[in-house]
């Protein structure tokens, strides 16, 4: 089967895209044909293996509305993340959650479905914090719009944020609205020689002070801290913190975000530990890279999933087998039984036939 392709030709054809997609999903639900939603295929490594007939979203692309003075952007889900970022950069604005791309073809829909955020996350907010609205096609083939294009909106349940990180299991994202922010006028990266426990503590202490922090990561005895804001503020904070200003700071944060640092290149299973920011180090037999001021810790190497998850959970966090490795123990941390029950019922509420991205998140 050829799957479902967004028409790539005329705009007039494109306006039929969503009705056609709805038809396709409806027919697939009747036939119980599982669908695999595909943007740029840059995040296929993440979660359970994609299965089913591909629904190609890449060609449903383009910026629908962007008014810099509203701080709001609306785009079709197949739009490349790089294109979105270029449009924002032209107006000196940005997606403040600093999303990783993990490949040139990354789309904005895939970015929201995966719910990934970059180094700025603990200080500016996550992907879901900036999603204002979502148009989706649910598993019944219904075209639905939630949220909107205004910054404050509390009408109805916040379905757009629920979609963020749901890995396409609740609906096919077709159009998305974001709150965007001005790019800081200035930034600098400072480096400090510290061991991991002291680095985590220091990053947390600074976060509790009025400093323009925008990233804090530790690796191999060095804590790197990024300051972003008004020029005068960055200057004053630099003077206060001391440390060594890094020349290649920008490259470091980008390589960290994109997992291009040598740490990530080992080809070993990559575990992501999400922990309370100030949590004490979780001992592992392999080296760790700490990001998000302690909130996100990466471990590269074979680990026992059950033992790791027990120690991470005891510290108030959860562990994800982010890339590679043996997925038979589950990619994502198991849910409390009562939460698992709600998850299954929610899945049924959006996708009763269970056809959308089956098995990407959990076993449904």
């Amino acid at each position, binding site marked *: 089967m050829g799957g479902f392709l967004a028409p790539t030709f005329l705009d007039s054809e494109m306006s039929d895209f969503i009705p056609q997609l709805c038809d396709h999903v409806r027919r697939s639900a009747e036939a119980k044909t599982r669908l695999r939603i595909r943007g740029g295929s840059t995040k296929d490594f993440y979660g359970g293996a994609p299965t089913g007939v591909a629904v190609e979203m890449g060609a449903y692309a383009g910026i629908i509305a962007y008014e810099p*003075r*509203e701080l*709001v952007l609306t785009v079709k889900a197949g739009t490349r993340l790089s294109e979105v970022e270029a449009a924002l950069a032209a107006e000196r*604005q940005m997606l403040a959650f600093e999303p990783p791309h993990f490949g040139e073809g990354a789309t904005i829909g895939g970015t929201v479905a995966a719910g990934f955020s970059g180094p700025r*996350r603990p200080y500016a907010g*996550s992907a879901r*914090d900036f999603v204002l609205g979502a148009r989706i096609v*649910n598993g019944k083939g*219904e*075209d*639905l719009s*939630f949220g909107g*294009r*205004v*910054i*404050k*909106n*509390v*009408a*109805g*349940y*916040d*379905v757009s*944020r*629920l979609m963020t990180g749901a890995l396409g299991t609740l609906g096919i994202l077709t159009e998305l609205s974001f709150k965007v922010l*001005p*790019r800081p*006028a200035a930034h600098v990266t400072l480096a400090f020689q510290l061991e991991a426990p002291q680095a985590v*503590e220091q990053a*947390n*202490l600074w976060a*509790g*002070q*009025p400093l*323009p922090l925008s990233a804090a990561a530790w690796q191999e005895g060095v804590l790197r801290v990024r300051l972003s*804001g*008004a*020029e*005068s*503020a960055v200057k*004053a*904070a630099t003077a206060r913190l001391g440390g060594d200003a890094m020349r290649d700071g920008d490259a470091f944060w980008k390589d960290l975000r994109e997992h291009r640092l040598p740490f990530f290149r080992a080809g070993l299973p990559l575990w992501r530990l*999400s922990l309370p*920011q*100030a949590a004490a180090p979780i001992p592992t037999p392999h080296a760790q890279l700490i990001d998000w001021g302690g*909130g996100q810790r990466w471990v590269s190497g074979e680990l026992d999933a059950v033992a790791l998850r027990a120690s991470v959970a005891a510290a*108030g*966090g*959860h562990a994800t087998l982010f890339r590679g490795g043996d997925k038979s123990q589950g990619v994502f941390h198991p*849910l*409390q039984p*009562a*939460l698992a*029950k*709600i*998850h299954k019922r*929610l899945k*049924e509420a*959006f996708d009763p036939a269970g056809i959308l991205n089956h098995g990407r998140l*959990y076993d449904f």
Partner: protein
Amino acid sequence: MLNHCGYHGPMEEKNIASAPKRLAVANALAASLPGTSVLADRESLKPYECDGLSAYRQPPMVAAIPANETEVAAALAVARRTATPVVARGSGTGLSGGALPLADGILLSMAKFDKIVSIDAVSRTARVQPGVRNLRISEAVAHLGLYYAPDPSSQIACSIGGNVAENSGGVHCLKYGLTVHNVLKVRAMTIDGDVVDLGSEALDSPGYDLLALVTGSEGLLAITLEVTVKLLAKPEAAQVVMASFPDVESAGDAVAGVIGAGIVPAGLEMMDRLATRAVEGFVNAGYDLEAAAILLAESDGTREEVAEETARMIEVMKANGCTRVACSANDAERLRFWSGRKAAFPAVGRISPDYYCIDGSIPRRSLALVLRRTEEMSVKYGLRCANVFHAGDGNLHPLILYDANVPGELARTEAFASELLELCIEVGGTITGEHGVGIEKINQMCTQFRPGELTQFHAIKAAFDPEGLLNPGKMVPTLHRCAEYGAMRVAGGKLPFPDLPRF
């Protein structure tokens, strides 16, 4: 006087509980809760008959005031066993009737859940029970140089549990976000009596973002037992720029200009002349009464940042034709500038027997249009309207002034409000920016959403609460109700045969 937002007719139907049912439910509750924690007589139930939307009043069948999780579980078990709906209540300051009791329901007051459980200065979090007042959190952590950012105007009284239910905002949310952006974890009890952690002490949690889903769910999905909030470093400095404009359009342009200059102010508020005059007679904030509109723009951050930002904002105000501009010289003056804005609602209450507050949210570019149309509606309906406005994030609070004792004014007020909310939807906005839907705006939900979305909302509720026992009838209208509302609107618009084709 109706001292808060609004008046509407009675709810669509009233299920008056029979005396035997009241007795049965009260007895069942009294079997698991201390006797003083169960109220069933008319006099004791009176304080619970409304929330901040005081025009709607309905005493509950019975009220339960649990003191711990076991008692909450017991109350929910009674609700399940007797198929009795449950309405949770925090401080009762909500403005949309979200905590309005049901005549055949249990009112579950969370007032005894009033402890700050723990404060972690290093991780900058606080675990608090849902009945803790919003402002109390900031007061409790002030000595650490920290605070809790969302600051709804009712913050001295409103509870954090209610804030989670409503996803409350405040004057600083353009920069610091709403409740959903400032909460890490909600420990909640489902109607089944299961205790679940939504979110976590970490920055995310596995699976669906149920924390986001439950925030703003108006008590329809679960009962909040504990909230872990994020605390922020108190800014080193803050300053307010106050600027006067000869018309609302140029004030609107200045707002766009500030954002366009790459500034995200901590607060950006507009008031029109009717509002400033009402306020000035009340608190003496020092407002320019000749101005058609004034803007208050606050900058916060490091000293250097604030100095740089306020200078740039003053430039923008001047470039957009402001007639006067002042900058707060010290904190006392800054608070004085804000005092007027914060007193706007009660001040308007002094110049009119009643007022009705609207909470529409619009794209900022439509501001001038919406204000102009509001003025036209004001003439059309013969009612004055004062405009206060969270200009930075597009959240309007027009206050329609009326007198409930003058025959017809109520009905005209409702028609005015309804037309204005529909205008908000028409320009791409929403019927509620921060006050919630509750019972007040339930009809407008029929305009904001199509049947498909509403059906999806009902399915979401059913995933948490299959029997529909938690705050039923609020926030999401039934399709049946929408059909009736649609027919009524068509009748009001004099289209007696809506099915006939029209050209």
